[in-house]
């Protein structure tokens, strides 16, 4: 036990708000500043400034790799289909729906707006030409590539700030510079660059903040704390993967707080409380506010109707200019002849003179009543007249007048409005029968009730033919039934079953229409219908004015809540099998890429593939790191320290942080049910590369304080620890670089490859590159 460590338990000074017994960087700070004071004379200016040079080198190489022929290919590549399109919608101010939060897409749009792009192109298919369509794609890509370009320098800054040597930091940064997947992704109009940029920025800001812990509550402490919060807000506003970054930083902060609360530090509870509150404010309130603000801007920009309308409730849709609901929402009144369309499957409720067969294939017997089916196409058979349940003389006269085409004043019409929970009868216009359900098994779903019709004067069937119209989301029974904008359930008054249909088609006797039957769980979402048409009514300008006046404005928060719910729902529903999806376990092993783009004529292709050598090297590093930890800890249990305490502490602090960063951005994917892709691993891959540098540092940089640079532009005292270190560093970087260049035709898509060349690059049989033959 040395003296320095013992002293660490003594509170250092009054002005630090909490003290530390074992803060490594504190010790490092001491030692390295002492050291630099001691021996700065004998060091060449090259070594002294080496960190700046290294940083410049990284920046230059990063720029070259990302911007190399950024204009090529002049075609839509992979998910530019989506994100280019979304940018266009922002510029057109048309509402769209996407599962990702809006920030990254708004940033792309911002680039387009700055260069005067008007959003006329919709990026419909991979391979569409940009030039002939007049899209300033170079500017767009160049703009997004700024974020991609910034990643390696940021990695350098993080490493330098975390107390690594110039060479280790350079190693990490160069590995990231020459990673094929990051370069591929980094020069196209995609979200991941922007997201990863904010992610690294958040990590960087947090490290700056953490290093200021002895100057708690100082201005710079606050600055970096707030910056961390802001960056976290931005990551999560790009993609919900940002939540992983939040969990990483959150975990680190909790651990930090856990140490602060330790009574041996002499922290009082009120001091602890201020620490706690400051962090809660900056890391919860700030990101949340930012997240919501971006949605606010999102709604503020997208004011026109667009392709995203259909995902939303009618109230939401009616907020958008030019929405068809606004155009077509009429009051439904008794006596109107209306059509019902099933929300989920889009079929119309229909009946005809056809009857159910007596006996079905499975030998069950039917009622042989008139068929009620769901038809894709709307015809005469789809019209139903909505009637009150009793014979009311006033209604009869009213109906006669309506049918005679008489002009009836508005007030009188309004007396016959249909409201939520009204009991009605539905008369099929074509056959003059009432819709009815009864206790007979439906043709294909024996557990559900058959739907059929009954003659108007059939008193026995009267109870069966009463329907309750339940409007979805109705508030009180003053809610009026409207076309287009109301979703309704038709629930049998007697049996409590709701009209329901499903994709299964009836056999030939039912003309392959859909089966309609009574669902015994009336509350299910699948029972929703809309009234689509009213016979004989068309929208007039006057009508529309009236409708507009009636629109209930929707506040930001309710709009946001609705959108957020839909995003989560649809994100989880992204389970469609994609030919290039993959499982998380395969990502670090780099077993398969994603085909982004192909050009058949010139045999060019872009194929997202991580640098295989780099991936495998960093996997190895991860494994070795765990082994090193286990060995160190085992030895400690036997009270034998085999590693220098400073090196060990740095390893456990910074090394573990990076390891957890990797885990936090990787492991949660295993729990996700949705389709996953290799590019989901990109954030984690950066931390894996850093891990390689960490291990390099542990193995080769023994005399730890001599090599530390504390800033990207900080002063270095020494560069290369040993010849072996130089050799290993050179070998790793050279391997990475050569592999990068070798696979670069797949990154840039500028050179066509012969089948031999393609096959030579299929290092694993699972690399399904094109043009193998």
């Amino acid at each position, binding site marked *: 036990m040395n003296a320095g460590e013992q002293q660490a338990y003594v509170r250092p000074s009054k002005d630090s708000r909490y003290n530390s017994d074992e803060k490594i960087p504190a010790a490092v700070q001491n030692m390295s500043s002492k050291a630099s004071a001691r021996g700065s004379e004998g060091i060449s200016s090259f070594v002294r400034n080496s960190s700046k040079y290294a940083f410049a080198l990284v920046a230059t190489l990063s720029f070259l790799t990302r911007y190399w022929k950024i204009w090529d290919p002049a075609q839509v590549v992979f998910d530019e289909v989506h994100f280019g399109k979304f940018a266009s919608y922002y510029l057109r101010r048309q509402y769209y729906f996407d599962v990702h939060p809006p920030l990254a897409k708004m940033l792309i749009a911002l680039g387009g707006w700055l260069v005067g792009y008007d959003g006329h192109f919709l990026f419909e298919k991979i391979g569409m030409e940009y030039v002939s369509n007049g899209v300033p794609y170079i500017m767009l890509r160049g703009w997004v590539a700024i974020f991609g370009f910034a990643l390696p320098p940021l990695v350098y800054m993080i490493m330098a700030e975390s107390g690594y040597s110039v060479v280790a930091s350079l190693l990490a940064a160069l590995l990231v510079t020459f990673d094929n997947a990051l370069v591929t992704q980094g020069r196209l109009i995609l979200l991941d660059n922007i997201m990863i940029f904010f992610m690294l920025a958040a990590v960087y800001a947090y490290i700056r903040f953490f290093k200021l812990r002895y100057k708690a509550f100082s201005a710079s402490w606050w600055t970096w704390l707030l910056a961390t919060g802001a960056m976290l807000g931005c990551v999560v506003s790009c993609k919900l993967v940002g939540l992983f970054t939040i969990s990483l930083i959150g975990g680190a902060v909790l651990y930090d707080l856990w140490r602060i609360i330790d009574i041996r530090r002499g922290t009082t509870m009120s001091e602890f409380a201020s620490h706690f509150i400051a962090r809660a404010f900056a890391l919860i309130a700030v990101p949340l506010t930012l997240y919501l603000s971006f949605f606010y801007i999102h709604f503020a920009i997208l004011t026109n109707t667009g392709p995203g309308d259909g995902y939303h409730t009618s109230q939401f849709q009616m907020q958008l200019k030019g929405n068809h609901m606004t155009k077509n929402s009429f009051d439904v009144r008794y006596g109107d002849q209306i059509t019902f369309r099933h929300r989920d499957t889009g079929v119309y409720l229909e009946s005809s003179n056809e009857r159910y067969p007596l006996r079905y294939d499975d030998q069950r017997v039917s009622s042989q009543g008139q068929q009620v089916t769901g038809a894709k196409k709307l015809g005469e058979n789809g019209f139903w007249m909505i009637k009150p349940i009793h014979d009311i003389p006033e209604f009869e006269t009213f109906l006669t007048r309506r049918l005679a085409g008489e002009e009836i004043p508005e007030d009188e019409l309004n007396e016959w409005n249909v409201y939520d929970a009204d009991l009605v009868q539905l008369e099929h216009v074509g056959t003059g029968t009432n819709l009815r359900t009864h206790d007979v098994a439906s043709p294909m779903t024996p557990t559900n009730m058959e739907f059929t019709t009954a003659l108007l004067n059939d008193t026995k069937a009267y109870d069966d033919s009463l329907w309750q119209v339940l409007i979805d989301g109705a508030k009180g029974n003053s809610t009026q039934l409207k076309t287009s904008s109301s979703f309704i359930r038709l629930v049998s008054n007697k049996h409590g079953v709701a009209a329901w249909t499903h994709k299964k088609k009836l056999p030939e006797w039912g003309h392959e229409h859909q089966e309609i039957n009574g669902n015994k769980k009336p509350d299910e979402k699948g029972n929703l219908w809309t009234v689509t048409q009213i016979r004989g009514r068309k929208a007039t300008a006057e009508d529309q004015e009236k409708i507009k006046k009636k629109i209930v404005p929707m506040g930001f928060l309710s709009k946001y809540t609705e959108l957020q719910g839909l995003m989560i729902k649809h994100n989880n529903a992204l389970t469609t099998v994609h030919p*290039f999806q993959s499982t998380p376990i395969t990502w670090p092993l780099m077993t398969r890429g994603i085909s982004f783009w192909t050009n058949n004529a010139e045999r060019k292709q872009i194929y997202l593939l991580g640098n295989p050598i780099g991936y495998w090297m960093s996997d190895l590093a991860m494994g070795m790191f765990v082994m090193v930890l286990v060995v160190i800890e*085992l030895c400690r249990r036997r009270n034998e320290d085999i590693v220098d305490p400073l090196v060990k502490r740095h390893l456990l602090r910074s090394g573990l942080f990076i390891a957890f960063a990797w885990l936090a951005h990787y492991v949660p994917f295993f729990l996700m049910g949705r389709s996953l892709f290799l590019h989901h691993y990109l954030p984690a891959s950066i931390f894996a590369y850093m891990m390689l540098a960490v291990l390099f540092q542990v193995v080769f940089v023994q005399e730890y304080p001599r090599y530390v640079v504390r800033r990207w532009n900080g002063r270095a005292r020494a560069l290369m620890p040993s010849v072996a270190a130089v050799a290993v560093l050179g070998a790793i970087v050279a391997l990475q670089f050569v592999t990068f260049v070798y696979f670069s035709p797949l990154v840039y898509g500028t050179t066509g490859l012969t089948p031999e060349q393609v096959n030579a690059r299929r290092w694993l049989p699972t690399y399904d590159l094109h043009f193998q033959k």
Partner: protein
Amino acid sequence: MTTSAGATTNEPGGHMPKGHSMRGSANDNKSASPSVPKVSQTDSSSSSVMSDSVQVVSFAPPAPYHAKWAYTTTDTLALVLITLVAILVRCYKLSTPDKVVFDEVHFGKFAGKYLNGTYFYDLHPPLAKMMFAAAGKMAGYDGVFDFKSIGLDYIAAGVPYVGMRLMPALLGAVTVPATYVTVRACGYGLDTGVLASLLVCFENGLVTQSRLILLDSPLVFFTVLSLACWAMFWTRQHAQFTPAWWFWLVSTGAMMGCAASCKWVGLFLFPVVGLSTVADLWDKIADRSLTPARWAAHFLARAVGLILVPLAVYLFWFQVHFALLYKTGDAAGMMTTEFQTTLAGGLNVTTDRDVYYGSEIRMRTTNGRNGYLHSHAHAWQHDKGSGQQQVTIYGHADQNNLWIVEPAFNTTADASNGPVPVPKDATIRLRHKTTGKYLHSHDKRPALSSQDTKFELSGYGFDNFAGDSNDNFRIEILHGDKHSEGSDKHVQAIYTRFRLIHSNLHCAVYNSRKKLPKWAFEQIEVNCMRNCMPRMSTWHVEYARLPSSASGASASAEGDLAARPQASYRKLGLWGKIAEYNRLMADSNGSLTGDHPFAARPQHWPWLRRGTAYWGGRGNFIYQHGNPLVWWGALGSVLLFAALRSVLFVLDKRRIRPGLFGQRRKYLSAAGFFVVAWAGHYVPFFLMGRELFVHHYFPALWMAILVLAFTLDLFTAGVPRFARLAAYFAVAAAVLYAFETFSYITYARTWSKDACVRTRWLKTWDFDCEHAFGGVRSTEPPPESTPKAEAAADKVAAVDKVVVDDTVPAAAAVGGGADAVEGAEKARADGGNEEGIPAEIGVPFAEEFNPEEKPEEETSEAAADAVYVKPEYDDPTAIKVAQASPVQAPESVAADIGRKSNQPATGETIDDKKPVGSADDKHVEL
């Protein structure tokens, strides 16, 4: 270095209590001098995240606190008494109902199969079922009764069911004294021990489960015994490596092995016991008085006791299992052919080894166990199908499984020098022997899939039509058999494993393992799938014969044929059988999905959202339902522990150490262990997609009940003894009251409707009072029409078994009672229930609608191959079908496909790696 100094005092035979961990001593130091900051404690300065977390998370094994359980006569007395009570509670009215209940359908049947020696397959390991077989044997069951459906009468069939039920009942009874032992071994007193065992004894769910022929009673029994032994093992820490120490260690392992041999749920014991072992060994590393050799001895002892012993036990029971089941049976078809050859009366194939052009072959899926490539003269009837002849997989060998190997379209094999063997990578056609159609694939979706990587397989061809290139399949040999030379170069029956790759579509003939609809006779679907893994697309020839007429002019003698090399399956050894059986279990567990009405997800278990309906009689029924007080108390005490532990963590940091009535260490380590055990037996279920039931919670429930007992002990530790006893009595009385209340549905006691309805404390408890005690029951047919009767019948399918097939009528109606069942069955059989359908609509249109009238069989072979244009990705309904005449079909089809999907129409026609990104797809980003 003080921490490790503290640890060094912990040596065997030292003055401190045995098993006293380093963690404990460090804490003691701290509490001794709470106010003095320890300047010298540098250990924590080098402590890492990892070591910190190890120190704070207590996986403390039970009873590290009490060195020894001083066993007395009072203990004996208590044990005897509670055992008697437990036996009484478990065996009361054991003979009611005298009908097959719930999953007795399966496990009774399996017991019978053991007695007959007939092979069967079940997704659970064999031990519990063999125990039932043994019980049945002793009781005089002859294995004839087949437990076919719920509600069948035992008495009439002369089944000694009481004897069979007695076995689980006694096992269930033993868990009660075992609970007592566990609690006592954890260092708790007699009173807490008795209370805990009463809580277990009067838990309705455990009682219900242990009175029937179900696997859970043995499982819970072995789980409880494992942990009881483990707790006993920990009381022997002062005498390590003594016979008693070894006895409890090995017993723990043996019991764990038995638990895992009952149901795989028993495997959850391993991480639980493993964690506390690892934590203990990790502590021991820091003990410098322990030499590395001694530590290694500790390590090895545990490895033997907790890994090798269970493994040996598990394998042993399988050996017994296979020894008992020596005869082939219906389920043998699920196994590989190598497996089947080991069963008496099972498959025993000998065939010509070499496959020639012209050979008749029968092809079998190698991994699918489902059978042979099959075709028959019926057409595909699905929406987007071609209407050509069906090709399926069929389990039984018949004439329709025979295919004739022919050379590729427009080529011939030169047979002048004798028959030509089929080489590696040969392009062949397969002609169906009985119908003459060729195995064919084309750009059509198969019957049960809409993915655009899957294509329909059909039989295609007719007179005067030579076929087309879509009949061509390439033989891709995966591997041969190393014992048969040349089996990787040429196709050899049995030895060569190969795939069939369609020449134009580059898809492999693939066993989808899905059951086709009735119109395809519920055979198994086979299709052609692109980019599929080889597992389900591997085939081998099981039978090959070159007909003499086809064997060529120069080699026509029958003698030649007979002299050809023969091939037969190799018999699978015991290890191979065990491995295959376990793989199959893993598969079927994974694919066990269903929609049993009483299936329940894990989040609904602990708070007793609802139970499971087991059986319904007249005026009584069995509904497996927990004792709510016990369940809620158990859950509450687990949550309380978690909360308390978290608060204590934080307080520790502030050096505030509540003593918890002097029970702190005992409570934290004993309750801590069982909370971890509870979590280990509960949380993993959340990750399981398969169908789950409340009874999966029972092992975890037992652990939570112990925590409840410990918690009650903790909160009465500070009060006078009489108050404590009074509290215990109050708890026991309340539990007893609840037990009695729900005992009606536990024992199928006769009950009244009012009492039944009153007993539904929660709205979600759905025991069916209306049906069981409804007025009109036995005399009248159910006044139901079809839907309800169907629904009632649907409610009952037996649980926990190989995929519940909803097309097969389930047996009995729960709550609805036997009559409802009969009604339902009748309704199904009659195709409707005469009484059920109102007369006025039953008749009038009978003449107009002839029910016998069926759509004409599609005979339009001439419409033949169709090419579809791929429209929008997500609207499969918009697929347009363009007809192509058979004359132009052969070559143009492929070219068409190429053109229409924007592919270069090169000679290869289709590149199976389509350069699609996500553009066609929905938006697939995260």
